[in-house]
């Protein structure tokens, strides 16, 4: 898979470069990188969760819909979170446990979109001896339109 080959899949590599809970400053922007979303990446994501609606695959069908062309499923931000962040981002720290997320959807991402991310830790706290960080994210397309925005609660590795 082309995208996986270009992406460091060993999350232990450079693990020492990533911020631990103590280093994370709420409010400080995370480094992000633009990402061109491809039809192939959308199709692979769809396969992984069993998405089979033609709006994601069938260009001729998609043109007849309110969207006017192919789109990605709303939950494509799951892929965008990792594709728009560099290898030293703390979201990749081995043992990071996802406790829950909330996302709001504005317009769909589409194949060919160049996606950018504005992201930060928003809050950190300790609860029942666990180290939590809340992260806050907004994805934009190349026109500057908001695709979606969301927040996640992670438990940091100790």
């Amino acid at each position, binding site marked *: 898979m082309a995208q996986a080959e270009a992406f460091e*899949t060993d999350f232990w590599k450079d693990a020492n470069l990533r911020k631990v809970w103590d280093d994370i400053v709420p409010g400080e922007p995370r480094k992000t990188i633009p990402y061109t979303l491809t039809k192939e990446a959308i199709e692979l994501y769809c396969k992984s969760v069993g*998405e089979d609606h033609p709006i994601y695959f069938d260009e001729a069908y998609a043109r007849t*819909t309110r969207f006017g062309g192919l789109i990605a499923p709303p939950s494509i931000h799951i892929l965008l979170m990792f594709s728009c962040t560099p290898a030293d981002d703390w979201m990749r720290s081995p043992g990071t446990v996802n406790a829950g997320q909330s996302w709001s959807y504005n317009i769909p991402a589409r194949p060919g979109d160049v996606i950018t991310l504005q992201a930060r830790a928003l809050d950190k706290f300790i609860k029942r001896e666990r180290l939590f960080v809340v992260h806050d994210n907004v994805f934009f397309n190349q026109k500057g339109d908001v695709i979606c925005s969301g927040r996640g609660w992670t438990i940091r590795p100790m």
Partner: protein
Amino acid sequence: MTATFDNLSAGDVIDGPKFAVSRESIRLFCDASLDYNPLHLDDDYMKGNFGKTNFGGIIMHGMNNFGLISRMITDWAYPVGAVHRRLETRWVKPVRPGDTIQPTGIIKAKQTTEKSRWVLIDVVVKNQAGEKVATGEALVEFPRDLFCQ
């Protein structure tokens, strides 16, 4: 009967897709999401403790639940011209290879605002033993200019 904003009632049920979880499905989700956290790949690593938690083996990505719930919502919304606007989830219990999970939605409330119409949906994902593995809430918009597909 096709769902319309007017004929929906609190308590109406949306049946989501069953999803068989395997080492292969988890690996595919790694490749599709680029989330290669060893929680989902490395059995030896998962023998260790995470604070007070021991998972005992690899677990499915929580966001795989999220993607499955989102699929249920859009597959319900697209044919009636409605738009998936929000999803909030909490993971309740780990999901492991060999589990079969299924999301369900239950209409909770309807609300009309100045410019649109909204449906709140309670969401639960259960495993084959009927145990809750995730809970959440979705918000679907029924625009006044419905464009049914």
